[in-house]
């Protein structure tokens, strides 16, 4: 026997740490909550390498004297509650007394703190849970905690961390929630010395939101009329549909100024907005619920992320109604949701670089993986606005962008032509045409002649700043004047010249040719032309986007139509 031992405090800490401290963002959350509880008016968060290398949280809060500082890093030591009754009256964000001890057990941490009323501050170094230095120090009033080398002694945990950009992104989202929850505190955050967040802490929630998402968007945030019940109040702002996001990240919920997550409440909001937001688009909302602490159980989740409310049903109902009311008042009677790609709201500037830009592709195009089934019978085609062709599909209704579709077909043809018959696919012009060159093009005359030759254009020198166009590729529309196309190709070439990517340039040239030659939006088509186009299109199921990445087909299934009209189909 004797196989069972009580774990040493350090090990206990490390295990417990795993629950609370998952990643740099958790560290930031815990430290910032401590600063908020210390009544700081300014909190600065400086982190590097996504927080994996170092995280510094500096506040001008109450600070700790020598004793408090030493105790603070011990488990279950906290200034925030004394007994279980305090939990019921909880007004602060932190209470378990675990966070700091967990953090210092899995990192190399330096804390400098000085209470306002004292002249002297103290400095403590902790490495993997052990105090390695403790002495007085000069310091500004407040506390600064620097957490370096997170998880240096728990390699397993370290492996689970994502790359620095992902971790940084998490930290920033964490800070956004905290900053919104405390509009009276000025937050400043920097990643690798680059500013990522700045709020002025003037106490105005909408202004704070604007400082994060862009002040010009504030006017599209609608004030939710406050609801006051005996034991709770609800207030906040809801963004108009033109601010919609394609994820729920813009939904910020707060209970008693603590950011939190609750599936039921989130659903309540979405429910209230359903009619006004298109499918796949979610609202921006800042919602504050102030509720008597006895009705809230925060001890549900280790990271205090989820809370349970005792009167959930009533609250969710009120939230749904309030959001609906706000939108209705603003937008008036129900209007069909407009999928406005141009006003598509994007993430806060800070995070935009983190999301990898996809060249020309939009979420919609990616979603369409399967080609809608071709019409089984001969059907009528309808041209709308001289730009779109509407026809029946097996599942319902199909709308085709004529220009995009034709462009795609041209492009495919050109590519295969170039692949199969690299030479002799040009058509000689009856009369050669002159191309006037700009000075920049004159500089590159030799290169241009070679480049155009590759694309099956034949040109010759025809003057100090002119070329003579003798032949164009087969696929170029013989009825159209090829000169505008040539000029566009030349311009593209000059712009991209020297960028080292000849194949890319050629590819773009082919796209340009394909585009130039296709029917445009606004060209009327005869039924025969439409049929010809569509049958060519449907014979190749992979044709779902134009070469620029834009979708060319939109299908509306009967089921979707049914849902739209509130009918079961």
């Amino acid at each position, binding site marked *: 026997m004797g196989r069972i031992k009580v774990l040493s405090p350090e090990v206990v800490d490390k295990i417990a740490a795993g629950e609370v401290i998952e990643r740099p963002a958790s560290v930031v959350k815990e430290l910032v909550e401590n600063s908020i509880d210390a009544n700081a008016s300014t909190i600065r968060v400086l982190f590097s390498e996504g927080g994996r290398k170092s995280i510094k949280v500096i506040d001008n809060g109450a600070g700790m004297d020598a004793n408090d500082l030493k105790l603070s890093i011990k488990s279950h030591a906290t200034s925030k509650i004394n007994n279980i009754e305090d939990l019921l009256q909880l007004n602060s964000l932190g209470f378990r007394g675990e966070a700091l001890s967990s953090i210092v057990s899995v990192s190399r941490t330096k804390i400098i703190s000085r209470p306002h009323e004292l002249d002297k501050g103290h400095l403590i170094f902790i490495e993997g849970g052990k105090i390695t230095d403790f002495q007085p120090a000069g310091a*500004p009033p407040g506390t600064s905690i620097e957490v370096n080398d997170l998880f240096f002694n728990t390699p397993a945990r370290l492996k689970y961390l994502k790359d620095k950009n992902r971790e940084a992104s998490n930290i920033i989202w964490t800070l956004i929630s905290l900053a919104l929850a405390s509009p009276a505190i*000025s937050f400043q955050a920097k990643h690798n010395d680059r500013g990522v967040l700045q709020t002025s802490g003037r106490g105005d929630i909408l202004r704070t939101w*604007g400082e994060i998402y862009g002040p010009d968007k504030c006017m599209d945030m609608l004030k939710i009329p406050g609801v006051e019940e005996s034991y709770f109040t609800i207030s906040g702002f809801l963004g108009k549909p033109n601010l919609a996001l394609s994820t729920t990240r813009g939904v910020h919920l707060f209970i008693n100024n603590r950011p939190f997550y609750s599936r039921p409440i989130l659903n309540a909001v979405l429910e209230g907005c359903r009619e006004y937001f298109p499918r796949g688009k979610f609202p921006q909302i800042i919602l504050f619920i102030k509720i008597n602490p006895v009705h809230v159980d925060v001890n549900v989740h280790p990271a205090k992320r989820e809370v349970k409310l005792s009167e959930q049903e009533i609250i969710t109902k009120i939230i749904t109604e309030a959001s609906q009311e706000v939108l209705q008042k603003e937008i008036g009677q129900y209007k069909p949701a407009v999928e406005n790609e141009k006003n598509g709201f994007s993430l806060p500037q800070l995070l935009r670089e983190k999301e990898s830009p996809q060249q020309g592709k939009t979420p919609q195009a990616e979603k369409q993986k399967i080609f809608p089934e071709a019409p089984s019978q001969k059907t009528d085609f309808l041209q709308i606005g001289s730009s779109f062709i509407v026809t029946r599909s097996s599942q319902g209704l199909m709308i085709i962008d004529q220009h995009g579709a034709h462009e795609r077909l041209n492009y495919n043809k050109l590519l295969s032509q170039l692949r199969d018959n690299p030479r002799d696919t040009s058509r000689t012009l009856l009369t050669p045409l002159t191309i*006037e060159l700009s000075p920049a093009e004159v500089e590159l005359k030799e290169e241009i002649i070679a480049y155009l030759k590759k694309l099956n254009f034949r040109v010759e020198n025809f003057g100090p700043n*002119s070329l003579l166009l003798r032949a164009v590729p087969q696929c170029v529309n013989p009825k159209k004047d090829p000169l505008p196309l040539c000029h566009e190709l030349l311009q593209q070439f000059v712009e991209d010249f020297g960028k080292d990517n000849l194949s890319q340039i050629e590819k773009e040239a082919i796209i340009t040719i394909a585009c130039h030659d296709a029917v445009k939006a606004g060209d009327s088509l005869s039924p025969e032309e439409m049929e010809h186009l569509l049958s060519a299109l449907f014979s190749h199921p992979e044709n779902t986007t134009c070469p620029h990445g834009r979708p060319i087909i939109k299908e509306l299934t009967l089921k979707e139509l049914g849902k739209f009209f509130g009918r079961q189909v």
Partner: protein
Amino acid sequence: MAKVTPMMEQYNKLKNEHPDSILFFRLGDFYEMFYDDAQIASRVLGITLTSRSKSSEEKVPMAGVPYHAAESYIAKLIQKGHRVAICEQVEDPKKAKGIVDRKVVRIISPGTVMEEEMLQSHENNFFLTIATGSEKWGLAYTDISTGEVSVTEIPYENISTLSGEIGRLKPRELYASANLLENRTFKETIQNQDKILTKPFENNFTYPQARQFLLQEFSVHNLEGFELEGREAAVLAVAHLANYLLESQRRSLEFLINIRFYHLENFMTLDSHTRRNLELNQAMFNKSPRGSLAAILDKTKTAMGSRLIKKWINQPLLHLETINARLDLIQELLENDEARESIAAILNSIYDLERLIGRVCYGTANARDLSALKTSLQSLPLIEKKLANLKGKEYLLRKNVFDSLQDIFDLLNRALAPSPPITLTEGSIIKSGYSPDLDRLRNISVEGKDWIANLEKTEREKTGIKSLKIGYNKVFGYYLEVTMANQHLVPDYFVRKQTLANAERYFTPELKEKENQILNAEENINSLEYELFVDLRDKVKAESHRINSQTEILAELDTLISLAEAAREYNYCRPLLKDNKVIEIKGGRHPVVETTVENTFVPNDTFMDSIKSRYHIITGPNMSGKSTYLRQVALIVLMAQIGSFVPAEKAFIGIVDRIFTRVGATDDLTRGKSTFLVEMNEVAQIINNATPRSLILLDEVGRGTSTYDGLSIAWAVTEYINNPDRIGARTLFATHYHELTALEDRPGIQNFNVLVEKKGEEVIFLHIIAPGSSDESYGIYVAGLAGLPPEILYRAREILNSIEKDNKEIKPPPRKVPLFPDDSKDRAEKILKKIKVVDVMNISPLEAINNLYEIQQEIKKYFSKDGKNG
């Protein structure tokens, strides 16, 4: 004398006219230099030194640079402080009889640079002229790349003000009378500045001549418009400046867009020591702009804003209303995030309009410049819209109404092709539709070529030669090509041009005519485009004043937004300024240092008034933050008086008219002066110039001499400055003489010290300034930190202990004589003695004048009406 070629004769003649410049003598595609110029050029530019020895036995040293690459070479020479005279061939070599006529078209000198490559976009490049009037100096300075000219006058007594202005402007060149440049005192004054190229006046104007000259040059009836009427010294300065520019730039002075008189009494006086010690523009230890106040506050988006904010930083204001107007605007911009961010975004797209217009007026603007101007003007209506909502717009528009200049934008938009080239003689500058003549010519060219292209088809039909081809070749032009096999089908009107192996090339009379038409048209197109461009540029030049007034507004807007952004990022507060003598700061921080130590900067409070807490004696160890504290107080005052928010929780600032600093111990051994002498000079300067409204920082006075001497001097200086009947200025005095703390019993003097925490042998600096005196210097401890071995430290402590035991407390002798005896009799005797010993027979006139000047100064100082300092 050996025979000299006509060309060398021409060269020598020109060179004699420009002895102090390197003459770039245009020879074909090169600029050549000869004799000494060649030696210098070869050395500085690293080019080969060759020689020319055509018709004489002597070898003439020669070096040259290619014409089209000349600019970078000129830039290097300018950078090394040389002047370059550009001499061009002014007639067509083909038409010249004998040697080609040559003329110097421009003299480029470090202070008169127009070219972008030789300028720093965010800094001005000043040329300074100093003229001596009957009782004042006149200062006129210009940056010809922006066309600004500023003038002021300084009374003779205020030589430190003169040196302060020179320090502020950091001119590359100084133009003044030979007398002044030779004057010993003046030479000393400018010795401390970075290298300045000096030049004595070429023509010496009298006042009436100067005035007449200006009336003529600027075509005005009187000088009221420039506020120069009746200002003798100022007029002299401007006249000399204008004269020099006429001579060197060889064109009319239209490029001087703005002439403004400014009053030095409107600005806080800062001498060059203070600018350097407070690190306003450069860090002290490496002279880099990083680590300066300007680097912290400059978040401007345009080059003009960047130059303006540096001017503001170096000229803090004294006028409450203006300061508050700036603060109001900054506050508004801080609170209105949307306006601030959107205007900043628009400003980002605006080019350096000041220098663009400068080039337009100078005559060197090219199509790209006008294109940049066009782009910048496009954004103006957006700014107008944003401005309309700002309450502070009245202050911004106090001098000029906002004019969105859309008529100029329209003109440029109609006239300029998108992305024009840099060269002006190869066309593609003007848009079609702007000039009917140009369009017509272009049509001829295009239609002509189309006709030629079509000719292939027509001639094929006419001759029946199916394989006939039209072509073009650089040497022969357009041709019709017929293979050998078809030669028999060639008609008579085909004229043979070129024979190839298997074909013949022909032209027809029609073809030739068309070809000529096209060539003609294209030549004319190029020259017409050039003319049209010049005309366009002139039209813009005519509007230069209008554009210039708007750039002033934009630069100010940019500067104010920059200050708002700095306030936001660094958490500054709005200072409250009053016309009293209080300085009260809560939680003050050093704006530059706090950014380098991140979170560990300890804030401090300060309270000074003119009654009980006027003179602060600060003791404590070195490296404990005393110097930083001193500087931060001065910087907070300075920033407040710029109209900026300040790094503190609260700040109440009573207007300070001058800031003096005596900081640091720079040995001037190279100039034959010891640390102590330099220190005493600086203290003397402070004593002579401080007023009750000044702020004085003294960091260690009395070093560099024996302890007792130093202490006594520091003591006496303290009493003197603290005395309201003498100076009574607010002073921070950091010292290692803690004997001085005994002075606290005097009214106005307070002791402060830097708090430390002792931990056994170790001393920890808390960086907090608290009332009270420190008991030790901790000098030995700091020596240990610096690395002195323990053996020395231990022995030093032993010695210190024994000295302290033996020494009684130093008590100042009680005053037996009245506080400030009337020493005028002594003084008078001293002066008489001075005159008596002058060796009249053996001094130069210059020295005599210097002596006389000094005596005059002394008399003025000690025998003014009430014996007090000015």
